[in-house]
């Protein structure tokens, strides 16, 4: 058997804050190593989903093998958003080195630091690169000083580049070869391969991306996934260029893919260890975590008949998104739908958009919420992922909610505004640190529930878009929480209920009712909108009855145009959900997310 010389392999990734140029740099590396010819280049090859391109983020990791001066350079892409921090950590665990990319016009941002910490935690060799030095607003010295003062790099370690213009690319590749250590591992040992990504292909089934840590994987091997205990056969293995390149074996240090008879992506968890059924590894690689959704909401079809379509669509999405959790649920107001769990709010929004766009489903998403720990008077503890399931107040001893440690990077002049916002959102001040006279890092502990609702938008708005944030989970804390119910035309609408801190209940109740009055169209009768806690009304607004709505003029030349107007009016109605006698538009169900807009 021929083993690739380990010292000719470099496994690395690029880590950066969003929009600091990660995808563009990846493109240049592929070009420079002639892995892909310039003429074949589609901008930003590694981002394949439309939504990723649109939002400028990379959701699913991929890997690509480059060959350069008899070295094998495996570039492993990482998701660029904090919702996917566990996936990021697994991608990092598959590498020995990381390029830390910093935008010369922005300097260090929240995710720069978060990713840096993750990379450090994985013992990676980190190569700092200041990108976008060609831009007129580039402040290379500022970025350099931040890298030196905040992250402790030495001045001579820092590379300069403009990925857009192709400057500094050769130096980056040389640095990867010179500084990133080759992988270690024993090709003769029992097989341990780390799954760092997987995706579902409708022709080939689940394609697993893995890094062989120890041992050798051969085509035809019977394999076992140590986390789930499931067994499969390695029908095809190989390395990754822009397409799959089949090979007979992959050995320690290498990065590649595996196609087995795996039908369900949930069977190939990111972070799981692949071993052989015969002579298995004694233990899995450490760091495996089962997926834990952080944010939940209900998805309901506007038209009841679309329920089956919604079910099939969610199933299809889940084929490629093991982190998407769902189960059927019923709402008194909305009928049959699904309770879905997500890694974070971005994950939720992307899923919602894909259902709407790719599957063309008229969808209502209910107010997102976190998982509450409810301690009952009978000493039992419930985990509640849906406000409507909250037991009667008399049975509740206390409620706990998940907290985050949130780091916010902001220009110094907005420190006051950020602190006001964080306090407003029930934050506890932890720390304030100046990176330089112009920029500060503020740390707060905040309830996750407050962060998922409009926090990021508000942060951007109070800092004119300059702040960035990152967070980590720090467990549950007790809080004085109550369920706020919304009544429309005197009927409680369960899908609009949410859990809120008692001190904020009046504020939210008032804002919610005001917001709903704007979102819900006038009817032929007046519609009261109320907020209540445990049956007690705390806020009320009224949607005035529509009394006059008629086209004054309609003659021979108007008919086609007026018909279109009427058709539009009718279409608008179709997009609304009828609850009792009241038609409620989709937007209303997310009113709580836009309370301050």
């Amino acid at each position, binding site marked *: 058997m021929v083993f690739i010389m380990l010292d000719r392999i470099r496994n690395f990734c690029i880590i950066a804050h969003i929009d600091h140029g990660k995808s563009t740099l990846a493109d240049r590396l592929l070009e420079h190593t002639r892995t892909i010819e310039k003429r074949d280049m589609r901008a930003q090859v590694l981002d394949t989903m439309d939504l990723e391109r649109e939002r400028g983020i990379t959701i699913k990791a991929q890997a690509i093998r480059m060959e350069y001066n008899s070295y094998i350079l495996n570039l492993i892409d990482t998701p660029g958003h904090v919702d996917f921090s566990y996936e990021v950590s697994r991608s990092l665990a598959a590498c020995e080195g990381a390029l830390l990319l910093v935008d010369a016009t922005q300097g260090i941002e929240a995710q720069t630091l978060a990713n840096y910490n993750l990379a450090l935690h994985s013992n990676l060799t980190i190569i700092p690169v200041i990108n976008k030095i060609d831009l007129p607003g580039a402040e290379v010295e500022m970025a350099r000083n931040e890298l030196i003062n905040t992250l402790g790099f030495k001045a001579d370690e820092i590379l300069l580049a403009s990925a857009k213009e192709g400057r500094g690319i050769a130096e980056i590749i040389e640095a990867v070869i010179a500084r990133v250590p080759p992988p270690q591992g024993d090709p003769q040992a029992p097989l341990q391969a780390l799954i760092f990504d997987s995706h579902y292909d409708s022709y080939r089934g689940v394609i697993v991306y893995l890094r062989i840590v120890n041992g050798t994987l051969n085509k035809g091997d019977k394999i076992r996934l140590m986390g789930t205990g499931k067994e499969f056969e390695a029908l095809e293995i190989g390395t990754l260029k822009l397409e799959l390149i089949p090979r007979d074996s992959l050995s320690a240090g290498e990065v590649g893919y595996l196609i087995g008879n795996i039908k369900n992506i949930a069977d190939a968890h990111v972070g799981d260890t692949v071993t052989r059924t015969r002579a298995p590894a004694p233990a899995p690689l450490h760091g495996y975590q089962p997926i834990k959704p952080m944010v939940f909401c209900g998805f309901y079809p506007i038209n009841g008949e679309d329920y089956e379509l919604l079910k099939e669509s969610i199933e299809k999405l889940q084929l490629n998104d093991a982190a998407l959790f769902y189960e059927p649920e019923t709402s008194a107001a909305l009928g049959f739908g699904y309770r879905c769990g997500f890694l974070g709010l971005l994950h939720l929004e992307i899923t919602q958009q894909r259902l709407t766009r790719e599957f063309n489903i008229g969808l209502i998403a209910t107010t997102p919420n976190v998982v509450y720990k409810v301690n009952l008077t009978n000493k039992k503890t419930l985990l509640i992922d849906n406000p409507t399931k909250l037991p009667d107040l008399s049975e509740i001893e206390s409620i706990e909610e998940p907290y985050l440690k949130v780091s916010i990077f902001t220009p110094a002049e907005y420190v006051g505004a950020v602190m006001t916002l964080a306090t407003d959102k029930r934050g506890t001040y932890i720390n304030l640190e100046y990176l330089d006279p112009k920029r500060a890092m503020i740390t707060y502990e905040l309830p996750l529930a407050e962060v998922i609702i409009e926090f990021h938008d508000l942060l951007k708005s109070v800092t004119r878009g300059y702040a960035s944030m990152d967070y980590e989970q720090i467990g549950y804390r007790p809080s004085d929480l109550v369920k706020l119910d919304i009544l429309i035309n005197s009927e409680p609408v369960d899908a609009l209920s949410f859990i809120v801190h008692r001190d904020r209940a009046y504020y939210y109740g008032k804002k919610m009712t005001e917001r709903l009055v704007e979102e819900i169209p006038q009817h032929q009768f007046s519609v009261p909108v109320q907020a209540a806690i445990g049956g007690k009304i705390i806020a009320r607004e009224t949607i005035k009855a529509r009394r006059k709505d008629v086209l004054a003029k309609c003659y021979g030349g108007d008919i*086609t145009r007026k018909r279109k107007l*009427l058709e539009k009016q009718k279409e608008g109605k179709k997009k609304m959900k009828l609850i009792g006698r009241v038609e409620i538009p989709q937007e209303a169900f997310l009113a709580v997310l836009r309370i301050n807009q």
Partner: protein
Amino acid sequence: MTALYIHIPFCQRKCNYCDFVSYAGKEVTIDAYVAKLAAEIPNTEFSTIFFGGGTPTLLEPRHFEQILKNVAATFRSPSGHGGLKTAATLEITAEANPGTANQKKLRELRQLGLNRLSIGVQSFNDQHLQTLGRIHDAATAKRFYADARSAGFDNINLDLIFALPGQTLAEWKADLQQAIELNPEHLSVYNLQIEEGTPFWERYASSLPVTRYSLPTEDEELAMYETAIETLTANGYHHYEISNFARPGRVCLHNINYWRNGNYLGVGAGAHSHINGQRWSNPNCIEEYLQHSTRMPPNDSRVATDQRETLFLGLRLLDGLEQDKFTGFETEVSELMKEGLLEAAGNYYRLTRKGLYLGNQVFARFV
């Protein structure tokens, strides 16, 4: 039979609320335009004729003569004398704007066979007339009306608009009172609609509360509309369409044909036609219209009309529409009846009073 609509897209000045096809400052093209119009009219029988605008009264009598000559065959007197003799029963209307014709000109028009005038008075309040961008004041409108009467017009409509920016209910009542005092045969009262592409749209449809503030609220609009209905019916006008009122026997036959979804041929720039289930329209631009050669457009540029249009147009008439026309819409009918928006009357379905105010919600159910 088919009605004939003749569009005259010329105005001295464009009003601030108007989104019709009409242009100010293009009067030099009138001669060519009229020649084109005359050529576009086929030699066939028409049930009614309507000159709309724009401002038809900007045309000279000779223009009307030139156009009517071409349709003259359709209403030449039975004795076959020829010339421009009109059948007494044939309704020939022209829209007219105060200040664009004197008594002499009106007399000539009457002699050419025009027998109905629809005068754009809009308001008797000079301040509101100015806001609307009209070229005349109230006194001019009254004089024009008197001139039309002495010119021999015994079938006159006045157009009025309510819910004007800053208008009070008392001001609207005064407008109605002055209109009634003039004793026209017909009144059209329109709730102001702020149309896209007009100066009013720029001014009032913006979300700035300070500009929206001056428009009457929905409740005020409704009060004005109710007042109009009560006042006019109390004074002997029959309310026969959402915005139209007439003395007995003086309804506008030409317009009723639109609401009954009948056939009509529209000639001139931007004019719409509806014949045997198909709709089409001419180019809006005068220059383009002058170049436009085909009399009937090719099939693919026509749009099929259908029962839905018959229903939403027919329900604009207060008598409503024969029940058998609603075949296939039984669910909608029963829902609307339950909501109190529609009612049966004899073998007709018609809007209730509530349905009249919320007409769009009824119409939208049928499109």
